[in-house]
């Protein structure tokens, strides 16, 4: 990280990606709160995770407030539900004016539509698509297993 300043990060959704990000940001010395409505999802956090865990539905305003989203430097919305991610990130951006808001949107059709709302959108499907396209453009001989048919 460029600055050594410790950030206050709210991560919504503690799935594979959420827990991974929470572990990593916590180990980098940032203050982390991770929110998920399934308590067992916190099992994915490592033993040295030093942030907070908050059980609750992030669509509920009271839960976001409890996570002190109003003071966050960064909000990352990575639940399985695109609409939840969109709502949480819009609340963070437009109501609490959180400086940096990133949302994962699985549906590429909707990623495009929401791109102009001031939220950084990560669409895994598009990223994979780009990556696969590049792989497929490579001639077979370069891909390491050059086995001409």
């Amino acid at each position, binding site marked *: 990280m460029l600055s050594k300043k410790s950030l206050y990060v709210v991560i919504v959704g503690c799935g594979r990606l959420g827990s991974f990000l929470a572990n990593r940001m916590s180990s980098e010395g940032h203050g982390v709160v991770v929110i998920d409505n399934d308590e067992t999802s916190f099992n994915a956090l490592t033993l040295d995770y030093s942030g907070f865990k908050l059980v609750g539905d992030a*669509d*509920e*305003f009271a839960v976001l407030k409890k996570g002190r989203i109003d003071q966050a430097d960064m909000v990352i919305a990575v639940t399985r*539900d695109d*609409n939840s991610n969109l709502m949480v990130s*819009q*609340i963070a951006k437009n*109501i609490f004016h959180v400086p940096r808001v990133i949302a994962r949107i699985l549906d590429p*059709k909707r990623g495009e*539509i929401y791109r102009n709302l001031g939220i950084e959108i990560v669409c895994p499907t598009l990223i994979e698509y780009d990556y696969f396209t590049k792989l497929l453009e490579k001639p077979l001989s370069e891909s390491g297993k050059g086995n001409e048919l």
Partner: protein
Amino acid sequence: MNILLVGGGKLIYFLSRSFISKGYRVTVINNDRDESTWLARNVKATVVYGAWTDPQILMEAEADTADAVVAITPNDQDNLAVCQLAEMSFHIPRKLALINDPDNENIFIKLGITTVFSPVKILSNLIEQRFSFEGITCLLPVEEGKINITDVVIQDTFPVVGKKLSEIDLPDDSLIAYILRNDTPLVARGGTQLFAGDHVIVITLPENHGKALKTITGEMM
């Protein structure tokens, strides 16, 4: 008028029936296969089965021809997404969203969805107003209860009996607007005296509703 209803359950069924009976054209988007089949058989609406907020499904439901969209799914995040898609991708002029968590009302408004209704708020207001007192009827909550218009029948035990309106110390921003005496409406003026049996039409705000009624009835609400 073309109305696009998004959601499920009894609400969708009865709403579609009611809109159709008024002559509107109704399209329903429902995300449950069995329910969609059932709806298609029982309601004269076009029923599209699919994810509520999938742009492709909205396209199939001809969202671009809708005059109004009504989002009444059980999830606030889905209702928000439906209305925002309706706005950004299909330019539907009127958007209505149901809000489950009353806290979300202000959020939706700030995010640009201005017509929202919260059943929890409407019901709890109604219930409180109905149960408050015998002889007191809430006639009309304006804008979901931002202003209340209440009909109070003056009993002879009330402290205001025999008093002129100018002598009654109602809280600020509340008002006795009309008096119905023997079915004759009188405009309330400072010099008008109140008698037992009068119906007074009181206009209040939620914050002074209880206080205003206490001033008139002398009892704690």
